[in-house]
């Protein structure tokens, strides 16, 4: 088998070595060019339109290009050689100026382009007059500290979360950032409970959990801004899957095996057929709900997504005795698929939930927050208390904790481990979706938001103790507070780095986490 595969591969490669005339493709497709993207200094995702760049060879002008609405520009060159690119100072908006670098002096750059090279040329903009402001900062250090903080926040890019405009003395900023950290921590805790419970019951480190968070946020966005063809289709598919899972969970012992399987697949394919129909109908069936009910739909869909993955991916893999490390790698694959399917469906834009952006601040002592943040905190606390009650007082909650504690012992005590695992995935998926909605309400919704949150969720569950639900709550709060409070002394861009550093420190000192038991770590 192996030799055959290799032979086929080698044969394929050698076959295309000898195709004549293909050498011309390189010139047709590539050729020499200079290109780049000019972005706004305060938000690197937004381009600056209309900046003109002219390329000279010696003294002869070759071509001029202007940046488009995304800030991209490209000049196609006649061939390899030395060129001089000149940025037209007149075309730059007056609030910006070109940053001087080694290569780019006075808006001019000398570049050498090789054959077939599409060479990037970096042209960076700064806020005009930043150079003049610097002396002021050194003159008044007390004020300068705050100003530098503001500056850094302005320069903070997509990686750093937005910190509400924090000003005033140290005490005020401390209080404000503590509140922000509490909020962030609660969001992390809500999302991370599922991750921790899933690890506890199945020993899978679910790398796709972050993308389940994104899924929730995207779904809420879809249904709150108007669901037409795509929304209806997705809803139909998930309804079919949901029915199939529920049949499996509740009817397993009451129906015959064949009938059950037939019913399940009927539900799944019925959902797909309905989805196709609704997709064809498109905008004819259009509807829109307020954000809270869109969030409820998103939570249900997130639960179905979790359940589907458990029923149709993880359970078969467990039955095949696939090793845990392999499962971990599979979950990375699932994460990549989920993330990029969402990217194709919804695009790479960063959006916010409409209607909640500009709000009057509510002042509570030293802390002022928009009402939406207060709602987030309230919802998160209520949900966390409910989950704690569920785990503490209900039969299924106790079963979850039992399976999480010792799978084999639970199974031999008569607990239906497969069913408990299914409930855990449903709960985890739903909570991840809810976390996504809350996170998106507080920040922005984009396709990578879940992945950014994922590492912080890992930090939270490791800090609290892998496999314990309460550990995820405690860890989430700690991670949120550390991340936000670090901006008191350190640049905002590094806030996530501090949270991850805290995780590494925890692994050094107490690898089982705050609430974990010792034997978990080998």
């Amino acid at each position, binding site marked *: 088998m*192996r030799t055959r*595969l290799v032979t086929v*591969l080698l044969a*394929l*490669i050698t076959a*295309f*070595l000898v*195709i*004549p005339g*293909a*050498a011309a*493709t*390189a010139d047709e*497709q590539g050729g020499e060019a200079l290109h780049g993207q000019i972005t706004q200094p305060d938000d*690197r995702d937004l381009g600056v339109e209309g900046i003109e760049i002219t390329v000279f060879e010696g003294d002869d002008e070759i071509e001029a290009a202007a940046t488009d609405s995304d800030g991209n520009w490209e000049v196609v060159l006649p061939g*390899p050689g030395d060129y001089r690119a000149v940025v037209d100072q007149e075309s730059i908006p007056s609030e910006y100026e070109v940053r001087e*670098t080694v*290569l780019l002096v006075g808006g001019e750059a000398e570049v*050498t382009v*090789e*054959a*077939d090279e599409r*060479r*990037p040329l*970096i042209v*960076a903009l700064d806020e005009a007059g930043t150079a003049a402001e610097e002396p002021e900062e050194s003159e008044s250090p007390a004020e300068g500290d705050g100003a530098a903080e503001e500056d850094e926040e302005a320069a903070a*890019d997509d*990686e750093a979360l937005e910190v509400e405009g924090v000003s005033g003395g140290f005490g005020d900023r401390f209080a404000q950032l503590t509140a922000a950290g509490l909020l962030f921590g609660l969001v992390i805790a809500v999302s991370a409970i599922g991750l921790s419970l899933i690890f506890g019951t199945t020993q899978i*480190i679910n790398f796709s959990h972050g993308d389940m968070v994104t899924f929730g946020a995207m779904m809420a966005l879809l249904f709150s801004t108007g669901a037409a063809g795509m929304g209806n289709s997705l809803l139909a598919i998930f309804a079919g899957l949901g029915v199939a899972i529920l049949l499996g969970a509740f009817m397993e012992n009451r129906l015959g095996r064949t009938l059950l399987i037939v019913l399940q697949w009927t539900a799944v394919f019925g959902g797909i057929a309905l989805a196709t129909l609704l997709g064809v109908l498109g905008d004819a069936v259009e509807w829109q709900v307020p954000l809270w009910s869109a969030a409820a739909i998103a939570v249900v869909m997130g639960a179905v997504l979790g359940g589907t993955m458990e029923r149709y991916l993880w359970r078969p893999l467990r039955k095949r005795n696939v*090793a*845990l*490390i392999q499962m*971990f*790698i*599979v979950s*990375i*694959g*699932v994460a*990549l*698929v989920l*993330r*990029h*399917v969402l990217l*194709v469906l919804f695009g790479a834009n960063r959006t916010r939930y409409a209607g909640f952006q500009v709000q009057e601040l509510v002042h509570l002592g030293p802390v002022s927050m928009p009402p939406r943040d207060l709602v987030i905190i309230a919802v998160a606390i209520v949900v966390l208390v409910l989950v704690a009650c569920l785990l503490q007082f209900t039969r299924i909650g106790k079963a979850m904790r039992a399976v999480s504690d010792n799978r084999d012992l639970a199974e031999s005590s008569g607990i239906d481990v497969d069913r408990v695992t299914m409930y855990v995935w449903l709960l985890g998926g739903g909570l991840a979706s809810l976390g996504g909605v809350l996170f998106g309400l507080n920040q922005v919704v984009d396709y990578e938001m879940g992945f950014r949150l994922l*590492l912080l969720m*890992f*930090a939270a569950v*490791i800090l609290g103790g892998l496999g314990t639900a309460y550990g995820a709550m405690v860890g989430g709060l700690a991670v949120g507070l550390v991340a936000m409070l670090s901006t008191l002394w350190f*640049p905002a*861009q*590094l806030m*996530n*780095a501090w949270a*991850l550093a805290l*995780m*590494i420190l925890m*692994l050094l000192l107490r*690898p089982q986490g705050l609430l974990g038991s010792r034997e978990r*770590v*080998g």
Partner: protein
Amino acid sequence: MDILMILAEAARSAVGPVAAIYALAAVGLNLHFGYTGLLNFGQVGFMLVGAYGVGISVAVFDLPVLVGFLVGLGCALVLALLLGIPTLRLRADYLAITTIAAAEVLRLVYRAGFAEPVTNGVYGLQNLSSGFREVNPFDAGGRYGFGAMTFTGNQMWLMTVTWGLVALFAVFTWMLIHSPWGRVIKGVREDEDAVRSLGKNVFAYKMQALVLGGLIGALAGAMLAVHQGAIQPDQFKPQVTFFLWVILLLGGAGRVFGPIIGSMAFWFLMNFTDGFLKGLGREGLLPFLEGPDYGAIQLAFVGLLLVLLIVFRPQGLIGDRKEMLINVK
């Protein structure tokens, strides 16, 4: 759509500079995962320090490119030690989370505002390859090869060096694995406690493997820097590590030629799907997709490939199924 042209272009990329660089990094990862069983999900971190070792030395301090390589290797050594001391005693999945977190922290630090005087922040560094190209024995403007396999002189020089390094380290790996040292690290992969009971210092062996693989990864990063001539921190996202894992698993972990075959096959498939999708798009067969979506579909395809490989063929193209069935602890 000219399917032969797409296949030819894909075959060209399978031996091109990028495939060589990824093969080199995957050789390092093979030493980690394939032989020692370390779940290193932060290989891109080693590439990053290697690339920035060259970048900062050449672009900021005007040092020769060879010194840059040494700086990059030194940084990788330090990184491996810093990463290994706290985490190598932990269970494998903890190691995975810690390494991916460490690589992300590195990227965040290199792109942060306060590091801008040295790293130039999100813009990265440029003009890095002139020193490397000065010693190019090929004619820089000339074209080499035949048929579809045509490369410029600069590409030829880079490919010669990188594939040379790949071959060197493949031989090195083969020799290591067939030495007493190699038997011990394979033993660590199979059963750590058994090796410990033989009186071996498991931690030291794991650390040596981590350092060696990390140095190879850093070398790949340095080659990436001289290949592109410009580096930005955001090209060292965790996706690169995932690509390396797909390459390793596709080729076959725990095999000397696994990462090499894997890298060629992976880049062949990547460029083929890219060309194929673009071709279909030009024909107007994909009306509901726009240009930027093709990249996303490609990455979703990588994810699917990872899942299918693990489920149906965990040993990859040339791996040994028995070697991949073990459960790393």
